[in-house]
């Protein structure tokens, strides 16, 4: 065999590995919170003075806790998808994270709210309990209050169709 073909062959083998690597996601590290009970909290609701919310109120239902913030651009991207989900009857609770400018209520009034309720995590304390590293993040929580899945980054239509929708159907059974 021609010795000069060796570099080409080495490269082609590498390229095959790269192609396989592209189909995998190195960031998909399992969150330590998966299959653990959703941490409890009780926080004031945004735009509902005097009312508070805690995750135990959702017992017996499959729901999603969506961590977002008014200053977060990707959350704005995700908002449209969330509105469609709400129209389909998906139960969403918003965790308004570190909203120091107090813009959430006005924003939801203007754009529409996809949430059953939105709670106000001003100092980010609850975010820490949930291991939130950035916004948006979404936790899928089952009827027993157990976290089943964490979506890091915005929910696109693809993510919904491929990952979340089948999972929610499964959990609802």
């Amino acid at each position, binding site marked *: 065999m021609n010795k000069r073909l060796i*570099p080409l062959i080495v490269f082609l083998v590498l390229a095959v590995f790269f192609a396989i*690597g592209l189909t995998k996601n*190195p960031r998909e590290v399992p969150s330590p919170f998966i299959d653990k009970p959703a941490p409890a909290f009780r926080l004031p609701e945004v735009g509902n003075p005097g009312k508070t919310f805690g995750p135990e109120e959702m017992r017996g239902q499959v729901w999603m806790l969506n961590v977002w913030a008014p*200053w977060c651009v990707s959350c704005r991207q995700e908002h449209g998808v969330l509105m469609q989900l709400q129209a389909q009857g998906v139960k969403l609770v918003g965790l308004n994270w570190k909203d120091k400018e107090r813009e959430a209520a006005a924003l939801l009034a203007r754009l529409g709210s996809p949430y059953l309720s939105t709670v106000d995590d001003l100092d980010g304390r609850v975010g820490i309990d949930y291991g939130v590293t950035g916004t948006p993040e979404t936790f899928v929580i089952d009827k027993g209050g157990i976290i089943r899945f964490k979506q890091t980054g915005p929910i696109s239509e693809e993510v919904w169709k491929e990952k979340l929708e089948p999972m929610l159907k499964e959990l609802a059974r």
Partner: protein
Amino acid sequence: MIPEIGHFALILALLLALVQSVLPLIGAQTGNARFLAVARPAAQAQFLFVVLAYACLVTAFLQNDFSVRNVALNSFSQLPAVYRFTASWGSHEGSMLLWALILAFWTMAVSVLSRRLPEDMVARVIGIMGLISVGFIAFLLFTSNPFDRLLPAPPDGRDLNPLLQDPGMVLHPPMLYMGYVGFSVTFAFAIAALLSGKLDAAWARWSRPWTTVAWTFLTMGIALGSWWAYIELGWGGWWFWDPTENASFMPWLAGTALIHSLAVTEKRGVFKSWTVLLAITAFSLSLLGTFLVRSGVLSSVHAFATDPARGAFILGFLALVIGGSLLLYALRAPTMLGSARFAAYSRESLLLANNVVLVSALGSVLLGTLYPLFLDALGMGKISVGAPYFNAVFVPLMVPVLFLMAVGPLTRWKGASLPDIVVRLRLAFAVAVVAAVAVPLAAGEFKPWVALGVGLAVWIVYGVALGFTDRLKHGSNLLALPRGFWGMQLAHLSMAFGIVGIALVSGYESQRNVKMAVGDTAQLAGYTFTFKGTEAYEGPNFHAARGHLVVKSASGSEFTLRPEKRLYNAGGMPMTEAGINYGVLRDIYVAMGEEIEPQVWTISLFYKPFIDWLWFAAALMALGGALAASDRRYRIALKDKATA
């Protein structure tokens, strides 16, 4: 409006790049002079339009145009103007546009500085660089448009990643890219030579200054990145064997090997096919680095948004460029090693050994970087390969390179006498051994790796000194020595400084993590640290607690350090800003941790002996590169051209 102009300019640049590649390459194959003549103007026009596109992006950043997605995601109204400017390459899209801009710049430089070269050669080189431009600009336009709008525009941006808001980050990316992309020139020369079948000494001579300049930029870029990590990450570390660092280090290793093998090919006409392969490899590794960082196949601290479509595009491009050039290499590389002969002990054989070891070291870094990917692809789990692997494999491989570094320049081409060199260097060996034993003992604790490092450094310095005395014996004076000679010797000498820095800081650094209330003191390496408390202050786009520590050395001198803990307004991201007292023999480095109770902080204290020798070594190495690239032979080439 301005972003649309930028977008349009980029489309025109793509069309020009197509013209720049297709016509001259056809012209060179068919001998059509009119097609050949298109190369230079097309390359220069392409450069102008990419500059225009980049200027539009910068304008959008400077004007806080948050209706541009890229600006909204990577800038912030309170961000200082200099960081709004650098934010233009802080994102994936922007940094790819910078890639395209620098590629166009290098092409333009070739078009201006190549009048002495044969027309068909220039046309091929510019044409091949044009093909690469086509790939990158198409990548931008189809998967990563930096001018995409975001409507409705958000009221404010998300801010530039605070890690990137550092002076070291202002210059690091452009320098690194100048190096990375600079290897495209050498690559294009190699491919042009393969296409034309004229793989001769002239080809090697044209390639040399370009390679050296690119290598010099890459050296500076890597050093700035390392310095940035040292200051900004707050761990006191300066090299982490992170995949992205490796991605820049591998082309550097290949480039270093290439510089040496080009010298042999030019002077002696041997190793031609090996040199061509290295030229292809150096640029391929640059492209590979881009792929690894941009596609997200490896996770790294340099987390940019990842998108499989981008990964697939780059992989396809990689397959075309690297696969195509390696196929061409297999078909066209000369079958003969060259007619010149050399003895088993000669400068040629030593440089060959240098290349074999450098490439092995490169292979070890490549393997360690890709190993997690291999395992993941084979379904064998997720692992990460860390510093222990690299230190255990890479460092021992560098030892023979450093040993030969003193011997090579003292050895004659064609053939030399081994007993002669042994006699000449036996004193050097003795001095090196004595230093290797004495320095660690004087430092208080004998460590074998420190001894080896110090011994090699002394060995290299001695070799450099002998090199100078040899030349001076033949009647020339220091200033009359060619710059190429100075460049080589300074670059070699810089390695001695670098090894001393690495060996001593790795061997004798010390660190403490302490909890300090106001008035508390802590001891480290003979220094007494007193915590005087913190004050709050407002930065342009962050608020910070600035610590105040008074440090007293054993000899009684005193200085103040002001490390900071910053909280950036846009993302709420905490950042440390280390307080550093620089010194020739040591750095004292302090980083703020957390405030656990009011005015009680965890604080990390570091003693970093000889670390600044590393940055000095990098600067000296870059100076060596700059001198070598500006050697008289290349300047004569330029002057001839001016009078022609």
